[in-house]
């Protein structure tokens, strides 16, 4: 049964159900070097991986909490109360029928197998710490596309993983990247060979079921020269009154002329801390796009980053954040223009209501040697009531005067005239608010695969229901 207080706190969260916990392996709560070694041993990992994990753990243990963002919420995280590894199934299946019944039911309720048949090139479904289901279309496999859950990727292609693991996000990057590197489990490993275009999106679905769970997936995507891929991830968790921690690391490598688009619709329940490091490195004439939607979670701190290392490379970060009661979405983008003729665009849209808080935090850097870089940053916030808060923390470090930069920021409110106009067309106040909110997010939703866009609009409509007292 769902805890009543938690239900009161979050209202109607559609994915708040949970299965009975039926784990085959569950580590004791709390984190020590031994836990890290045990995870590595259990997974039968090569020694070099164990070494990285241990180094990362030591760094994590020494590293102080960030002194920015929402320190009050961050400092409330009790690392000793978290379970760092939980295995719920014997292995990763490639046939839905072989997935344990309870887990399968969960993903059925989330609509995953249905979506796979209709519009996906590949699917991985992670439940707690590990993938329980995985598939890739035959034609992609034949073209040499590698798509595994990260554990299998390490087993099957250790040479590629060793080369790129921690190459974009070193474990010393921040406290949570260190934590992830120490205890990572699951996530996706993708390699797209030269010139191969993966036309249908590849999807990963992340589900936390257990209480006080920590999910630390690790994703590595390498798009070789002239290739392209669109990767989509979705996240949900049950609603408990105690907190869970989701701390992922995602590393993208776009080789010359490649395109990677990474889309996220994060809809964690509001008891989940979502502290994620996402970064891509873009080589010559390549493109990296982060399309990042944050609807759920208690606290999200996430700033998808692109290092524009190669001349003529391009970065896009399009993000939306919705913050309701008790939520803080601290999100943004980081772009590092290291090479000449690189371009970037950041579009950030946020909505807050019922005392929610959304922050845009961005960093734009242009290095001294990078000539003729262009960047456009647009941040729009929509504040739905007096109790809610929106703030922006933009930082620009520009060391080359040839750069052409634009920055626009706006904070707006829904006007009573807009509501009245829509209500005069037969829409109730909630529906009118939903229309305005969906319209506000439209520049984002139009970038998503249609099924995700429809789902996102529906979620937002739900969030708007009963929003007016």
């Amino acid at each position, binding site marked *: 049964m769902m805890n009543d207080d938690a239900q009161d706190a979050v209202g109607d969260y559609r994915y708040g159900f949970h299965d009975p916990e039926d784990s085959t392996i569950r580590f004791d709560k709390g984190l020590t070097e031994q836990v890290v070694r045990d995870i590595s041993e259990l997974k039968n990992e090569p020694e070099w991986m164990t070494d990285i994990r241990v180094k990362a753990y030591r760094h994590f243990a020494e590293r102080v909490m960030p002194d920015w963002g929402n320190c009050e919420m961050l400092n409330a995280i009790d690392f000793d109360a978290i379970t760092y590894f939980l295995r719920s199934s014997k292995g990763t299946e490639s046939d839905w029928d072989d997935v344990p019944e309870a887990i399968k039911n969960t993903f059925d309720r989330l609509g995953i197998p249905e979506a796979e048949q209709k519009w996906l090139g590949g699917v991985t479904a992670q439940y707690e710490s590990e993938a329980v289901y995985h598939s890739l279309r035959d034609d992609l496999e034949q073209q040499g596309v590698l798509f595994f859950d990260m554990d299998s990727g390490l087993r099957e292609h250790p040479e590629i993983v060793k080369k790129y693991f921690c190459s974009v996000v070193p474990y010393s990057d921040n406290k949570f990247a260190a934590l992830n590197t120490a205890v990572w489990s699951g996530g996706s490993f993708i390699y797209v060979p030269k010139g191969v275009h993966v036309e249908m999106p590849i999807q990963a679905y992340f589900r936390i079921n257990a209480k006080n769970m920590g999910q630390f997936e690790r994703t590595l995507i390498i798009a070789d020269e002239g290739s392209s891929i669109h990767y989509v991830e979705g996240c949900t968790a049950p609603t408990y009154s105690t907190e869970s921690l989701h701390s992922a690391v995602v590393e993208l490598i776009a080789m010359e002329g490649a395109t990677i688009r990474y889309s996220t619709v994060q809809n964690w329940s509001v008891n989940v801390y979502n502290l994620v490091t996402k970064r891509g490195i873009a080589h010559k004439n390549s493109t990296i796009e982060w399309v990042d939607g944050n609807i759920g979670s208690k606290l999200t701190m996430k700033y998808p980053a692109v290092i524009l290392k190669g001349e003529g490379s391009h970065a896009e970060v399009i993000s939306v954040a919705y913050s309701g009661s008790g939520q803080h979405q601290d999100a943004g983008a980081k772009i590092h223009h290291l090479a000449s003729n690189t371009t970037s665009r950041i579009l950030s849209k946020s909505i807050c209501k019922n005392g929610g808080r959304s922050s845009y935090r961005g960093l734009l850097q242009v290095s001294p040697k990078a000539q003729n870089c262009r960047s456009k940053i647009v941040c729009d916030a929509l504040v739905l009531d007096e109790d809610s808060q929106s703030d922006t923390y933009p930082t620009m470090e520009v060391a080359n005067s040839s750069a052409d930069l634009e920055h626009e920021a706006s904070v707006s409110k829904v006007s009573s005239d807009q509501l*009245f106009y829509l209500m005069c067309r037969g829409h109730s106040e909630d529906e009118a608010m939903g229309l305005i909110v969906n319209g506000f997010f439209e520049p984002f939703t139009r970038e998503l695969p249609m099924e995700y866009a429809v789902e996102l609009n529906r979620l937002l409509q739900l969030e708007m229901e009963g929003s007016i007292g």
Partner: protein
Amino acid sequence: MAEEVLRLSDLHVSVEGTEIIKGLSLVINQGEVHAIMGRNGSGKSTLANVLMGHPAYEITSGEIYYQGKPLVDLEVHERARAGMFLSFQYPSAIPGVQVGNFLRKSVNSVQGESALSAREFRVELKQRMELLSMDKTFLSRYVNDGFSGGEKKRLEVLQMLLLQPKLAILDETDSGLDIDALKVVSEGINSMPSQTSSLIITHYQRLLDYVKPDFVHAMIDGNFVKSGGPELAIELEEKGYDWLEV
């Protein structure tokens, strides 16, 4: 005798404590076209807004009956669903919401989801847009976002034609239109079914050259000072309003 659609009796309306409408009475029967003429600030637009239930306007005394029932019991969207329509003088922009989707959603809200199939809706939409000389690129633009004055007014009239109200209130629909646009918009208004009742608010007579009212009311300082037939509109155009002032 025609059925009564709207009845105002001794209506008083205030905005932020200032009385704007001062004891107005009016009956509109089915199929009748009423025009209210008056200068800026006479209370015409206030009347339009209060009829639709704008929250900023307070009815301090008097009654409004719509189809024989007290109107105050209905919320704004319920009034729309009951067949009332307001063509706005200054329609709001709704960025990110495409005109096509918006029209479909509005028709569904007012007439019910099952009233028109998607196909029937498209056919209907195409016909109405042709009548109003609207290009189909309108449908993918955002509602009133970056629209010219004329485009906004066309979209208002298009909505009116699609929603098929029982009572259409047109607030300064002619303002800001050139003569060609005025003709097109008038044609749209005239294509409404004959049983539709209309309340046309304007301060020029020129719209009434194209849309023939049954009754004309001259409004000064929150009340009707004179009512008559179409000839009153011409008289007002020629003589202005000063001669009517007390």
